[in-house]
């Protein structure tokens, strides 16, 4: 990707495809619960409506396109209500992690010395523990819940952004124009925020986009283990967990949410990779190095 002949936006299949699928998922998450009259948590006549296979009608004639779960709740409706929570948690967690990473990376790269050593060592130490283990420990000790999950995703995800931003700041701080700004008497903090940091934002945005997919998978994992979003509030992870018991009788309960989850994560990855070709240096697109 050196030499910089970027494909035009319309020709970039990864960007168009990823963006299209993600837009469809976000739109469904907004519209389906809005347009439906049902309540994703309400339980009606269980015996009459439970475990209806996808595409079948229940006794009252209501069509369940994706079937119903063990409590007779419509899976389509729950799926897209869950999407609101899962997408929201993923985006919020990743943005929080990104903000923390930008802040710490900027401080580390700009200040240098012992501050830098401390931040980098802390980052290395946290990278040495698998992120899921950290999440499990923190979420279990502080009690499960929406806010805890978002905060914990932020606290455990800043390291890769910090490294990128720090490297960019270190690279840019020796440029003549930075020295120029300082010589002209621009305050140090202002040089950092206005003249140095904007150079690093491209890679940070890429890392945050790639991080959304990761955060969604981690949230679903926590919820699957009962340490994330608590039922009856639906999330993709706890829907899969609830379907586990009925796997042999009604496999769609567990399998359908996973398919939407995978589509979401793949389109985040495609979008992130496409962005990295446009915004950042190639090194930023190491999605494999991020931890599960």
């Amino acid at each position, binding site marked *: 990707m050196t030499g910089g002949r970027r494909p035009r936006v319309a020709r970039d299949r990864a960007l168009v495809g990823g963006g299209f699928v993600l837009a469809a998922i976000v739109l469904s998450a907004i519209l389906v619960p809005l347009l439906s009259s049902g309540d994703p948590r309400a339980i009606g006549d269980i015996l009459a409506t439970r475990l209806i296979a996808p595409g079948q009608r229940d006794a009252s004639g209501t069509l369940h396109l994706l079937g119903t779960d063990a409590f007779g709740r419509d899976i389509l409706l729950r799926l897209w209500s869950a999407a609101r929570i899962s997408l929201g948690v993923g985006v919020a967690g990743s943005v929080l992690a990104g903000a923390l990473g930008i802040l710490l990376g900027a401080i580390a790269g700009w200040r240098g010395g012992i501050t830098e050593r401390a931040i980098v*060592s*802390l980052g*290395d*130490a*946290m*990278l*040495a*523990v*698998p*992120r*899921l*283990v950290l999440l*499990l*420990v*923190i979420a*279990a*000790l*502080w*009690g499960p819940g929406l806010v805890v999950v978002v905060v914990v995703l932020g606290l455990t995800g800043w390291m890769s952004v910090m490294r990128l931003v720090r490297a960019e700041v270190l690279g840019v701080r020796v440029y003549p124009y930075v020295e120029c700004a300082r010589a002209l008497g621009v305050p140090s903090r202002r040089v950092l925020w206005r003249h140095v940091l904007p150079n690093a934002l491209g890679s940070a945005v890429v890392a945050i986009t790639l991080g959304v*997919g990761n955060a969604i*998978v981690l949230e*679903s*994992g926590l919820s*699957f*283990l009962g340490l994330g979003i608590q039922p009856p509030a639906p999330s993709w*992870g706890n829907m*899969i967990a609830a*379907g*586990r018991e009925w*796997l*042999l009788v009604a*496999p769609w309960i*567990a*399998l359908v949410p*996973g398919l939407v*989850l*995978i589509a979401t*994560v*793949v389109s985040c*990855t*495609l979008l992130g990779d496409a962005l990295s070709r446009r915004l950042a240096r190639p090194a930023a697109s190491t999605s*494999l*190095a991020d*931890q*599960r």
Partner: protein
Amino acid sequence: MIRKHHPRVRRLLTRVIDALVLLWIVTTLTFVLIHLAPGDPASLLISPTATAAEVSRQRAAFGLDAPLIVQYARWLGGVLQGDLGMSLASARPVTAVIGEALPVSLFLGGASIIASFAFGVLVGGFQALRAGPRTDTAITVATTGLYAAPSFWLALALVALATTGASAIGAPAWARLPAFGMQEPAALATGLDAWRDLARHAILPLLVLSIPGAAGVARYARASLMEGALAPHVQAAAARGLARGRLERRYILRNAWTPIVVLLGLTLPGLIAGSVFVEQVFAWPGLGRTMLSAIGTRDYPVVLGLTLVYAMAVILANLLADLTVSALDPRRSGTS
């Protein structure tokens, strides 16, 4: 003292010291984290009818009444002597609890690392060197999707396939794989039959652990082999008319080993996370399952000990990858 040695030895020593310092930071962080959390393990382990005096006696027995710094010093002193303390839930040494679960996880992890890298490099190599653009795109879509699939979902999907799915298409009985546990309930088989039983039970967990790993390795191998194929010395060799197989093996693959070894260190956290879910879903009594139950019962010493073991594994893998890379490619030994 370090300065007198050969640069290579010196580098090795500094790497090892860095790794030890890192390990100490991890342990301290975990210790602080766990003890900052609200809640008290003694209150979970003691019967609800216990009196205040009984609770404080229990706390004293576990050493939970000492100041935090004393508890930390005691714990760190023990770690240096290979003693990770006593499990609060089972009153057995933590090392024994971990030692019991370790072989299960090592077996699962080791086998799936081998499978992931073998299949990943094969698939990635095929995509980069042999496949046409359409096949390449199709495989990329598949590997991207499989890499994104959460392991617990993959586990349930494979179980559904191997049970309901297999009987729906009328597959023979031997194709319906056991979905849970390490062996048949009340297994009486011995010798070869016992191993066969274990192998049948291991197929699904190993598939779940290896598929996302192989997909990740394939994506990575494809990219680095494609880049390698464009290198000037490869183009020159191709222009000289070197046979294709020789070109691929000697000129492209050999250079791609370095990034693949680096990847070996990077995949371990994902593998550990995957094993937590796989052991939970398939009821294999490994480290991941031990971790989950220890978290559930607030068994601090076990959680701390396991975090230490995990961090040790990751740090060691990165150290080994680092050293292998500098042995394979001396140019890179200066960079970290």
